[in-house]
């Protein structure tokens, strides 16, 4: 027998988990809990901008690009054309100037719908230009990372984006700029091993998978199943590689506080 109190408590916990990790969906009367991974898939760069930037403050940094297809890889350009229609993005990152809790910042957000937000020339270039814009205008830089890694279809020039973004971000930081890296689900491979892990401050969204190699590759290498929670945001915090794990609903408040702590005029 479950008492009424226990039932309420369970309901509360379920609701709390839901609020932290998932979006509520009402189907008839029943509440459906969607797993964090599914929600992460559905959460777009535009959703992120809506939830983090102050209403109406986001001005996209325009970037005109030619077609980036250095390997002339079969079907790649067509695939990107279709994804542009579908997502409204030109490639896997959206960047702009905005205010967060009243504090000005440059924000770049990666979007998994666009080829798992893999990094090719255009993604690398947009990250580099966002950092340069922040440097020229004396603004903090916030990047929400998510990526499957380097974009295979662009071959070696995709790998070079790791060196490019790292060099530009490093120069921005040396010039005194504040770089906050927010690792979201999933951040792996060439993005994880470049600008994602170069933050002055590194936050990780609750439940996010973060790592260099993907779990399947590691399992194949070591020949055993990985422990529960391996490479999750909480695991990284425990091993000392992120400053804080933050739930999505707390993200704006945390970023606002960090921007305040670095804003000379407000202190």
């Amino acid at each position, binding site marked *: 027998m479950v008492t009424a109190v226990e039932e309420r408590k369970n309901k509360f916990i379920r609701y709390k988990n839901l609020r932290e990790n998932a979006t509520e969906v009402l189907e008839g009367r029943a509440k459906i809990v969607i797993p964090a991974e599914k929600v992460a898939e559905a959460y777009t760069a535009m959703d992120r901008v809506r939830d983090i930037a102050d209403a109406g403050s986001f001005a996209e940094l325009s970037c005109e690009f030619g077609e980036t297809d250095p390997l002339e890889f079969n079907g790649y350009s067509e695939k990107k054309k279709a994804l542009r229609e579908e997502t409204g993005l030109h490639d896997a990152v959206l960047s702009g100037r905005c205010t967060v809790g009243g504090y000005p910042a440059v924000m770049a957000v990666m979007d998994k719908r666009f080829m798992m937000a893999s990094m090719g020339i255009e993604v690398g270039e947009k990250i580099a230009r966002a950092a340069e814009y922040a440097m020229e205008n004396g603004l903090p830089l916030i990047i929400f990372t998510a990526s499957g890694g380097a974009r295979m279809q662009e071959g070696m020039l995709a790998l070079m984006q790791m060196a490019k973004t790292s060099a530009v971000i490093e120069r921005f930081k040396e010039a005194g700029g504040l770089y906050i890296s927010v690792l979201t689900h999933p951040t792996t491979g060439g993005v994880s091993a470049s600008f994602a892990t170069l933050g002055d401050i590194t936050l990780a969204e609750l439940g996010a998978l973060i790592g260099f*190699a993907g779990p399947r590759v590691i399992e194949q290498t070591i020949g055993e199943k990985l422990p529960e929670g391996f490479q999750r945001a909480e695991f990284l915090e425990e091993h000392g590689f992120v400053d804080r794990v933050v739930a999505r609903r707390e993200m704006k408040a945390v970023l606002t506080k960090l921007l305040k702590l670095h804003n000379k005029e407000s202190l």
Partner: protein
Amino acid sequence: MKAFDRVLKAREIARPKITDYVEALFTDFFELRGDGLKKEDKSIYGGIALFHGEPVTVIGHRKGKDASENIDCNFAMPGPEGYRKALRLMRQAEKFKRPVITFVDTPGAYPGLEAEMFGQSQAISESLAVMSKLRTPIVTIVTGEGSSGGALAISVADRIFMLENAIYSVLSPEGFASILWHESARKAEAAEVMKLTADDLLKFGVADGIISEDSIFANVDKALSEALSVLKKKSTEELVEERYRKYRKFDERFCGA
């Protein structure tokens, strides 16, 4: 020659290893071990030596000459400790104004449990960031297989030379075929489309020169000597700015106003 034949040549166990290059090209080599934090990672070999009488820092991936040596150095697949050792040696080179010479030959960074636990990503990104601003010349020779971020992590350089049968790529052809076509068996086809040979990379501007393998050590010696004599004439500011510009531009042909 087919691209995949180059891949096979690049991986040949009989190819000279970093220890052979050290012996043939340098004198007074003194090996430096450990990352100063956690452990010694034998998949990265490094130390101080004289190159034509001038002190230099030498760093490279270490492959073995047989199975037992390869197990000992983890088949040249570094963990974070290996990259942190390389970084320690590079910072030391900067302090003592010694040029850094790196030799690249790796299937990639090690995808293991411990490597993840101790920050493989952070070790690589830090290496990329530090090399991009290191205030001393850096010259890289890709001698065998340069694969993925594990190769890039020690090759952000002022000059990159590739041996004529070396390869340098975003991932191994097997990994590429597995990711894009879910069939690692299509590795030969992958090698062809990936554009991973020295000729391809020279065209992309990733490699600055190709070294003929008819007399490997003499040719590598010549390439290194020429590159260093040019780089040493530059002021530190000029050197660092040119390196920054070189990486910043990848690849401007595709980024119209």
